[in-house]
């Protein structure tokens, strides 16, 4: 970025003037979002994989934000409805995600409580929060540095699918414990809601174009 403050009578110290970074966009080139091959911007479709070419992912921020809000909305039933129903000798008890965590703590299984808390509460909320930060960094120049932002982005991509742990726990317990009338476990509505949260956040992260953040930082 090159600042020119001559209008205010200030003269920029030449040490503070940075060279504009050589980006593909500045050279009127862009990388295909699927196969990463570099093309001139004027080209409509990728010569290698026939994907339609755009300078940045189309409507990246709008799509990501829409999906994030949807994920937040789905997070509510995921916590209010039970994630599974246990039928023990005729006694039916419904467990929600948070309820399950408290039960584990009560039975002093602190290890599992921490794992479920991390996977089902911390990770989804942290991921949604991080993506909001990233989306805003793509809209307005962020106070964070490019490296910090991109590390946040990589964290989000890495951690995304691990929120599904709880759903798989329910699945395996349902499959395992079916001794008919004596003991049985059934899944609850929250498991579908939770799956949708995971899917929505994964797609939100996919739709997001991190290059937009660097564009804002360079302005």
């Amino acid at each position, binding site marked *: 970025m090159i600042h020119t403050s001559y209008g205010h009578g200030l003269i920029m110290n030449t040490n503070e003037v940075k060279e504009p*970074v050589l980006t*593909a966009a500045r050279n009127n080139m862009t990388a295909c979002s699927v196969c990463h091959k570099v093309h*001139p911007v004027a080209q409509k479709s990728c010569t290698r*994989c026939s994907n339609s070419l755009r300078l940045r992912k189309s409507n990246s921020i709008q799509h990501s934000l829409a999906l994030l809000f949807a994920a937040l909305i789905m997070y509510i039933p995921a916590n209010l409805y039970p994630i599974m129903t246990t039928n023990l000798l005729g006694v039916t008890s419904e467990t929600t995600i948070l309820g399950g965590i408290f039960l584990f703590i009560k039975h002093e299984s602190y290890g599992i409580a921490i794992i479920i808390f991390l996977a089902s509460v911390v990770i989804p909320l942290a991921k949604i929060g991080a993506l909001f930060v990233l989306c805003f960094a793509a809209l307005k120049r962020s106070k964070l540095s490019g490296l910090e932002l991109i590390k946040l982005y990589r964290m989000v991509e890495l951690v995304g*699918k691990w929120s599904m742990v709880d759903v*798989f726990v329910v699945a395996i317990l349902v499959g395992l*414990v079916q001794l008919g009338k004596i003991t049985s476990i*059934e899944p609850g509505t929250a498991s579908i809601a939770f799956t949708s949260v995971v899917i929505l956040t994964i797609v939100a992260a996919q739709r997001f174009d991190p290059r937009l953040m660097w564009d804002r930082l360079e302005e």
Partner: protein
Amino acid sequence: MTSTNHDGLSKDSLACVECDLLMTNTIKLEHGQRLACSRCGHILARGTKDADVTTLALSMTALILLVISVSSSFLAFEASGQSNSISLWTVAHELIQSKFGILAFFIFSFMVLLPALYVICLILITLNQRIKFTTFPSVILAHIINFINPWIMGDVFIVGVLVGLIKVIGKADVSFGISFWSYVIFTFVIIKITQVVDTHQLWAWVDNEHE
């Protein structure tokens, strides 16, 4: 030194997918070397020796392991005189019985169907590299592989099983079947495959087929 194609672009031009930095690469990657963006550190490509043969071998192994996982006993469960052994199909079946068929669909897709499709496409695309005729257009295979990559959740499933078992372990005797172990090994093989087959490698195969 660098050749240009008809676009006027250097054939070795690379643009970082995360920060859009334009770079030129003339180095042929050695085994274990990684090509990283000089601004943001994003790893653009990994070098693997004989990537196509390695991937073919790993993918075939993965497919065999998956077939074993699906057709043998996953867990055996014994409590108060009642014993039960379940397979991965039982899990899907019970979910459908509980009127949660959609959950069964997603879970089965994430752990069996999508990884199977991923591995089959990899087998076909690496075969294309080695044999004279094309089994299936590599471009389409590469698109499928690229699309499925984020949705493979075998490792999450295993962790989920272990967590779920901790819950049951006090109340019953649980033992692991062949299916469980073959799925664990399958998960490790898939992790290795996803390391070798990065975007750069995948589309290099597509380029290769066209030449």
